[in-house]
């Protein structure tokens, strides 16, 4: 009852308030004055707009033995068997867990850019001091005296259990092994205390490469057992938000969800001790904010900087901008099972309509390579000569008509989905939308956050979308098994061509090096003609560092290895 009273009073009061009206000329004058002064202020601001905004500083505010990195997202899971989405999570795992083997460093030059990267054809032992591949079996001999950071010895049995967990936990990581003809945990056997064997169903070139990724890192079975529950025997729930004790150059010191991930150097690391004492990864989801932080000297390094500001950042004497060309694909994906994209001619029409030059120059400002095939430049056997979808609106319109949609009539409205925080994708989408409108296709842009975007993509519910793919193994058949094979779980466009499937089957596990390269070219010809997606561009991997930060090595998985970095 009182609520009625109050609300009536509230009504009265509110109406009384509205009576405090402006009935005087002075107020009108002030009102007009305010409006005018606003525009005057803007004109004044226009006249003296600063060129570069907030002041930059060349002095860093962080201590020399600590590296402060602004990362783009939070941890989705600390479990090596499950990692797929968050690069900061993967980076943390990569720095706290070592693998059996790893690539060797190599100085290289790609597309005119020189940097320290890795040679994906030459592998060194990491946890293993030596290894041997004979026929169907790869045998790894562990170093003496290895321990996890809590002192537990690392034996071959522990490694075997670790691999078994990768299969049993049913995350994504076991695919890396199953595609290399290691289909289950029984194929991993500890031969004795120091030697582990991985048995392949068929000898192939992929296993050793797949095995260098953090995904197959072994979690100590003792920790698994300590946190297992009856419904969750492999402790997957626990390791989602807790990092298991690792054996890498760094130890997780502190994790505050949504705020920071702090690592410190592992005093009992068996290998070369890191020069840094501490690494603070501050979670800053907004790219502009990360840029602000490094300009002010608050952080030493930022991940995923805004591409449109890289030229500006290069001018800053206190900063260095590193850009790494790589075989990454940025795809304009079209759902091959939804109209109008179930018709090849319609997909080709879209391919002719995309403004490739604009995307390369105005969206990526040159920090990208052209991409003309599903196998990008930098991956062996990449072949661009089959592609001729140069931007040609007339040809696009003709193709669209031949698909049965003259001037777009009869074509359903198209939803183009992009990830919400990805400015470059959004910009490219607007350009594409504008061109498609010119040939009569009605496209509306939808921005979806990371998690639901992945869900919809994996559920094959999207109509048209922009996504990128970088294969961590620089092998064309590894790449194509994920992208164009009709039974691949990540073939989200549902592309299906039996000839391509036959080629994938034939060459993926083959040992015939030359045959594989030639077969890849044949496959690319088919794929380019089918146009299951349009190849927009090959974006570079960009990192911005303060001038005094050294030692960045570009690995194919693009995860930071802090053990090699230091500040001068």
């Amino acid at each position, binding site marked *: 009852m*009182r609520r009625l009273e109050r609300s009536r009073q509230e009504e009265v009061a509110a109406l*009384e*308030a509205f009576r405090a009206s402006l009935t005087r000329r002075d107020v009108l004058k002030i009102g007009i004055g305010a409006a005018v002064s606003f525009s005057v202020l803007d004109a004044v601001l226009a006249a003296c707009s600063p060129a570069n905004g*907030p002041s930059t500083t060349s002095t860093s505010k962080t201590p020399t033995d600590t590296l402060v990195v602004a990362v783009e997202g939070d941890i989705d*899971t600390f479990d090596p068997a499950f990692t797929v989405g968050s690069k900061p999570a993967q980076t943390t795992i990569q720095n706290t867990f070592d693998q059996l083997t790893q690539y060797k460093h190599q100085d290289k030059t790609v597309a005119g850019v020189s940097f320290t990267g890795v040679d994906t054809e030459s592998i060194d032992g990491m946890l293993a001091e030596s290894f041997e591949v004979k026929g169907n079996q790869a045998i790894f001999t562990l170093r003496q005296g290895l321990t996890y950071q809590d002192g537990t010895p690392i034996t071959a049995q522990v490694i075997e259990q670790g691999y078994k967990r990768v299969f049993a936990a049913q995350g994504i990581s076991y695919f890396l092994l199953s595609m290399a003809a290691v289909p289950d945990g029984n194929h991993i056997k500890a031969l004795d205390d120091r030697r582990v064997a991985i048995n392949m169903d068929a000898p192939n070139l992929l296993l050793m490469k797949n095995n260098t990724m953090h995904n197959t890192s072994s979690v100590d079975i003792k920790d698994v057992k300590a946190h297992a529950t009856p*419904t969750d025997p492999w402790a997957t729930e626990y390791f989602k938000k807790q990092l298991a004790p690792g054996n890498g150059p760094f130890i997780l010191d502190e994790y505050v969800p949504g705020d920071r991930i702090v690592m410190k150097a592992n005093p009992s690391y068996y290998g070369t001790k890191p020069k840094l004492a501490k690494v603070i990864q501050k979670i800053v989801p907004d790219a502009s*904010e990360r840029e602000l932080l490094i300009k002010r000297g608050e952080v030493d390094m930022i991940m995923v900087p805004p591409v449109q500001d890289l030229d500006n950042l290069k001018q800053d004497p206190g900063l260095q901008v590193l850009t790494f060309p790589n075989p990454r694909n940025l795809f304009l994906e079209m759902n091959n099972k939804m109209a109008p994209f179930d018709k090849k001619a319609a997909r080709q029409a879209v391919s002719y309509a995309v403004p490739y030059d604009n995307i390369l120059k105005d969206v990526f400002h040159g920090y990208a390579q052209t991409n003309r095939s599903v196998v990008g430049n930098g991956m062996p056997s990449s072949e661009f000569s089959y592609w001729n979808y140069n931007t040609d609106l007339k040809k696009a319109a003709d193709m669209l008509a031949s698909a049965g949609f003259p001037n777009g009539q009869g074509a359903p409205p198209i939803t183009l989905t992009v990830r919400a925080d990805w400015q470059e994708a959004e910009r490219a989408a607007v350009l594409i939308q504008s061109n498609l409108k010119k040939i009569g296709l009605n496209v509306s842009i939808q921005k979806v956050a990371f*998690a639901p975007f992945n*869900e919809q993509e*994996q559920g094959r519910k999207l109509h048209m979308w922009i996504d990128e793919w970088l294969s961590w193994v620089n092998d064309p058949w590894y790449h194509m098994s994920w992208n164009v094979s009709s039974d691949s779980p990540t073939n989200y466009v549902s592309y299906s061509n039996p000839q391509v499937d036959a080629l994938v089957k034939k060459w993926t596990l083959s040992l015939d090096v030359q045959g594989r390269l030639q077969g890849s070219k044949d496959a690319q010809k088919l794929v380019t003609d089918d146009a299951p997606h349009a190849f927009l561009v090959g974006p570079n991997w960009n990192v911005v560092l303060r001038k005094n930060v050294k030692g960045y090595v570009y690995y194919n998985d693009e995860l930071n290895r802090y053990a090699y970095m230091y500040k001068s």
Partner: protein
Amino acid sequence: MGSTRLLLYAARRLLFIVPVLLVALFLTFALTRIVPGNPIDRVAGPYISVERRAELKHIAYLDRPFYEQFVLYLRDLSQGKMGTSYTTAQDVSKDLRQRFPATFELVTYGMLFAVLVAIPLGIAAAIKKDTWIDSVVRAVSVLGVSLPIFWLGLMLLYVFFFYLDWLPGPVGRTGTAVRFAQPITGFLTIDSLLKGDFELFWLAVKALVLPCFTLGFVAMAPVARMTRAVMVEVLQSDYVRTARSLGLPFRVVVLRHALKNAMIPILTIIAAVYGYALGGEVLVEIIFSWPGLGQYSYNALLSSDFPAIQGFVLLVTFVYMVIYLALDITTAALDPRVQY
């Protein structure tokens, strides 16, 4: 006045909150079910076996009918558990507790600023009715009600951060990357002083200026208008004129008599504005990258994180209702006409 009667009244009103809260919760629950999408897929990933997927569904109650899920949610709620967030993988109540201080500090200072500025301004305008002071106050008020709060924040950022570089940019509560404070009260301004860390205090204050002013300016406007309107009426009322004709000094008249009678509508509008501020601060937190509840709710909405959305709406609604409860009780205490 009978303070026991007042307490009983307060207790009755408090009880009244519960059914409304329940229905509000039910509404939010229902809203989340309209949204398409299967949260399990997002949590577990698409490569798990059918059995494990069914298991996860069972743990999250998603295989039960709707009303059963609601009852289970209420049961968990009574134990302080609000469900596990899909994005942070911890209990939503923990998420909310972590982010509450940032928002609370921002809204408190913002509303304090608004009220401390609005009431004197309103009184001054009422007393000096139809002079230039009155006109300025009314112009500023109507401006404050007309400006979009997120745009005001952007403009202030541009002028004071980008152009003049006097204040920090949208980089969180300390305007800097690496300043970790162990919370005592949760208010950075208070905690830093308690620990004698003046540098942190100054950083916190500088970071608070723009967001609090943005929120405060927009909140101030309706309060100033209402204060002025009510004071005008009160000053013209019979008993005030009687008091003045009896020779009481103007200041006494204003402060003791007029203000007291003007209090109720003013408090009413402050409560209403607080409700507005609870919504407006979401926009402010987004603009200023403030690590509070507003940003949390925004991310939750974008990621379709149902438990987080439910938890946030529940918390905010509860706070809003408590504010109104406080208003009702104060009104009851002050207004002799109200029976309780």
